[in-house]
Each structure stands twice: as structure tokens, then as C-alpha cells.
């Protein structure tokens, strides 16, 4: 069967790969030349191979790729949970490789804390940073109204449906004091109907409150609808195969999903993904 992981970690020209430095502002996130391999019982498995990407301030960027392409490892590296074997992570021009507490994170499962009320959950990130000002609770309450969770301030997470929990988890990330948001397949556990409703919801919310976002998804349509740029990842070890700038103007409507240009891009990305998936199977 497939044993792509047997190849040794390649020596990569790691630094100085940043050729896109054209914008005057420092990037909200700049990952350059990140490689990572895990060693288990003396067997070295490369997971990420020379990954470089950027998220400009107030930009929505997506990563799509086959499962097991090391996307979550990349998030762990950006979030400071893991240190890369090579490469650097910087935010707003500051070198922050391996530093925690610099990003706002939304995991795949909502991971709301069951002993906290929804309001206290939403305020958690600010609380951890000691950044809860006077009006923070009031502001959070207004936000809960805005995202359709009015009346659930004092409810515990298990009383909410999956979609509502996801919205609360998103709000927790949105209200965090850190500017850059990492969203790790936030809708993958939802059913199709709830999912498309959540996509529309997120699109609208993001366009009204532009934050810098790095978004992981398996869903090509979701990525196309939401992002300004998409990085297509290869199978393991993950590296960037293609970078696609998405031309649709903002504010976007859901109707763009029917436009020929959208469908063309969708087919192109699907083809790339299928190729990768098949490569992995061989």
C-alpha cells in the first residue's frame, strides 16, 4: 500500500522564500518555510514540507486539502502548541514562532466549557488575557443577540443545538482580544442544511467586521464563497500546490455560487483535490 512517509525529510532552502512581500503593511500572519516531521518509534513521518503563506490584515484566507495533509499541525504551529523543525511564524512584523496566546482559535468541535454559561464561554478569551473592560459583558450580550443566541446567555452549552454551539464558539473567537482568527474546519460536524446557513451567516458577519482570518476546510464551495485567497495543499507531507486569488467583489452574495466563473474555479479546485487524493491512494 501507500508508504509516502518513508522518504526522509528533505533539506529545503527554508529562508528567503518570501517573494510576495509587496504590501506596505506587515502581514497579519506570515508563515515562511515551515517544515515539521513527527518521529514515532524511530520512524520519521514528515507532515509539513516548506509551507509559506500569508494573511494580509483584514483578509479572509482559506486552506483546502485532502484529509491528513497536516493542516491541523500547521494550526498548532501557528498557535504555538508545536515548534516547527524549520521556518518561522510572524504576525504584524513580529517574529512569534512557538509563542502562545497570539491568535484567536476556533477548533473543529465547539469545545465550549460545559460548566460555563454561554455568556461566560464567549468571554473566556478576554478573561484569560485579563482584557475584559467595563462594558465587555454588555457588549457580549449584544453580540449574542446579533448571532441569534438572545435568551441563551445563562444557558449551559449542552442545552444548545450543534449549530448554536458553533455560533457561540465562533463568537468566543471573534470577541477574543487577538486580531488574527484561526478557524479549523468549524462547520465539518454540522449537517448540510445547517452548514450552508452557517456559511451565509459567517460571510455576512465577516464582511461587516473584517478580521484577519485563516480558515481550514475540506469544502471547496465554502472556501470559494468566503475567501479572498485559497491555498491548495498537497497530501502528506503537506505543501502548498497552488495559490488561487478569488476575484469576486465584496460584499458577496450567495448567488455567486451559480456564476460560470465560480463553477469554473470550483471544477479546477476539485480536479486538483481529486488528483491529490488519488496520489495518496496509490
Amino acid at each position: 500500500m501507500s508508504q509516502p512517509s518513508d522518504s526522509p525529510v528533505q533539506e529545503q532552502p527554508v529562508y528567503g522564500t518570501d517573494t510576495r512581500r509587496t504590501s506596505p503593511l506587515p502581514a497579519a500572519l506570515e508563515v515562511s518555510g515551515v517544515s515539521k516531521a513527527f518521529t514515532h518509534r524511530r520512524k520519521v513521518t514528515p507532515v509539513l514540507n516548506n509551507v509559506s503563506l500569508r494573511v494580509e490584515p483584514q483578509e479572509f484566507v482559506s486552506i483546502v486539502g485532502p484529509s491528513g495533509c497536516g493542516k491541523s499541525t500547521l494550526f498548532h504551529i501557528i498557535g504555538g502548541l508545536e515548534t516547527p523543525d524549520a521556518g518561522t511564524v510572524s504576525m504584524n512584523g513580529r517574529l512569534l514562532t512557538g509563542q502562545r496566546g497570539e491568535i484567536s482559535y476556533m477548533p473543529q468541535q465547539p469545545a465550549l466549557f460545559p460548566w460555563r454559561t454561554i455568556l461566560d464561554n464567549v468571554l473566556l478569551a478576554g478573561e484569560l488575557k485579563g482584557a475584559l473592560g467595563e462594558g465587555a459583558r454588555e457588549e457580549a450580550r449584544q453580540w449574542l443577540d446579533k448571532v441569534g443566541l438572545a435568551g441563551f446567555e445563562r444557558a449551559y452549552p449542552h442545552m444548545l443545538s450543534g449549530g448554536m454551539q458553533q455560533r457561540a464558539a465562533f463568537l468566543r473567537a471573534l470577541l477574543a482580544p487577538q486580531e488574527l482568527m484561526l478557524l479549523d474546519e468549524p462547520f465539518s460536524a454540522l449537517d448540510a442544511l445547517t452548514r450552508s446557513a452557517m456559511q451565509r451567516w459567517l460571510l455576512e458577519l465577516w464582511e461587516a467586521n473584517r478580521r484577519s482570518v485563516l480558515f481550514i476546510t475540506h469544502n471547496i464551495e465554502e472556501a470559494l464563497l468566503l475567501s479572498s485567497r485559497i491555498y491548495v495543499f498537497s497530501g502528506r507531507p503537506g505543501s502548498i500546490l497552488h495559490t488561487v486569488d478569488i476575484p469576486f467583489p465584496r460584499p458577496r452574495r450567495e448567488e455567486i455560487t451559480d456564476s460560470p466563473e465560480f463553477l469554473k474555479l470550483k471544477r479546477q479546485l476539485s480536479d486538483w483535490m481529486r488528483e491529490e487524493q488519488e496520489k495518496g491512494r496509490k
Partner: protein
Amino acid sequence: MRSTWKQIWPPFVAVIFFLAVWQLAVSLFRIEAWILPSPSGIAREFTGNASGIWTHTAATLRLTMIGFPIGTGVGLVVALLLHLLPWAKRAFYPLLILSQNVPSIALGPLLVIWFGFGLLPKIVLITLVCFFPVAVAAMGGLAQSDRVMMNYMKMAGASKWQIFTKLELPHSLPALFSGVKISATYAVMGAVVAEWIGADKGIGYYMLLQKSAYRTDRMFVAIVIIVLLSLVLFALIALLEKWLVRWKPRRDV
């Protein structure tokens, strides 16, 4: 309400059935009361004069209520220390498990030699039997925090102390309470055994007195009281748990 009743009636019927068989067997085979008294005989003794059993009950209750919080507290402190100091956990946790092969009750006579016949050796004995279930349950609960929540906390830049107070501690509460409930029943047992070893009052002492008089019925009365004490203590802890862990989804049985 209906579902509670559904849960209660099968064991209730089982107990009634058991008592009926017992009663029948005693009268059918004419078993002497000093070997096995009938349930009705025990009930009569219980409601009638059980010669000062209530003062003895009060003494045992007092002993339990002193020993149990101390034992639980020691268990908690041990668990927290071992959790917060990983090297201490590596060094002492295996020893702690091994130490449970020493039957705490067998230490009773030793404790009497060291600490005399007063309150102290009894409290020490109750503490010994109580702290272990609490310590093990609390450590287990503290160590098994949800991975995703843990990653969230770390990425959000939470300090070790924040992770402990905002994630590990609340997460460990249900596990902790199951330990405390076990140690609550152990505490009553520990108190009675402590009174066997050396006391001039208490249920344990009362049982020894009745044993020398072959008053089997009164020994059964003592056993019933011990069971009731354990149950009440258990129920109180369960109530406290329900109040503290009110965020937990109710299980549908």
C-alpha cells in the same frame, strides 16, 4: 416523577421479598433469636427501647463528621499536590497505590499504642480509609481534561494556573465527587471499626457490648443504624454534587 418511581420499585420489591423470606425461614425452622432474629423482632427492638442506642449513634456521628472532612481534605490536598508537581506524582503515586495493600483497619491496634484511646487514633484511622478514594478519583479527574479544550486554552495563551482553575479543576468535579461518595461510606465504617478497637461509647462499642450479651437482635439494630448513617451521608454528598455540578446534562435513563 413516573420514571423515578420506575427506578425505585424493583429494588424495593426485592428488599420486601428478601425480608419476607427471612421472616418465614426464621419462624418455619424455629431458629433461635440469638442466632438469627426475625426482621419483625429487629424492628420491634429498633422502635422499642434499644437501651441508649441514640447516645451511641450521636457519638459515632460526631466521630464520622470530624474524621470524614479531614480524610477528604487530606485526599484533596494530596491529589492537588501530586497533580501540580509532576515529579512528585512520578515518585509517590506508585507508592500510594501500593500502600493500599496495607489494610488500614489492621493498623488500628498500632494507632492505639501510638495515640492512646482518645479521639486522635480514631480520626487517624478514618482519615486513612477516606483519603485514598478521594485522592485517586481527584487525580484521575484532573489528569483527564478534554484535549481540544486544553489545546484551546494553550493557544489562547492561558497560564498554568488559569488552565488549572478554569479547566482542570471544574473538569475533575464529577470524578472527584464519585470518590467523595465512596469515602463517605468508608468514613462511617472507619468510625465503627475505630470504636471496636478502643472506645467507651459509639455504635462500635455498643455492638461489642451486645455481642457479649448475645443480643443478636440489637446487633442488627446497630447494623441498620450504620446503614442509615451511610445512606444519609451519601445522599448529602449527592445533593452537594447536584448543586455544584448543575451544568451537567441530565442523563436520560
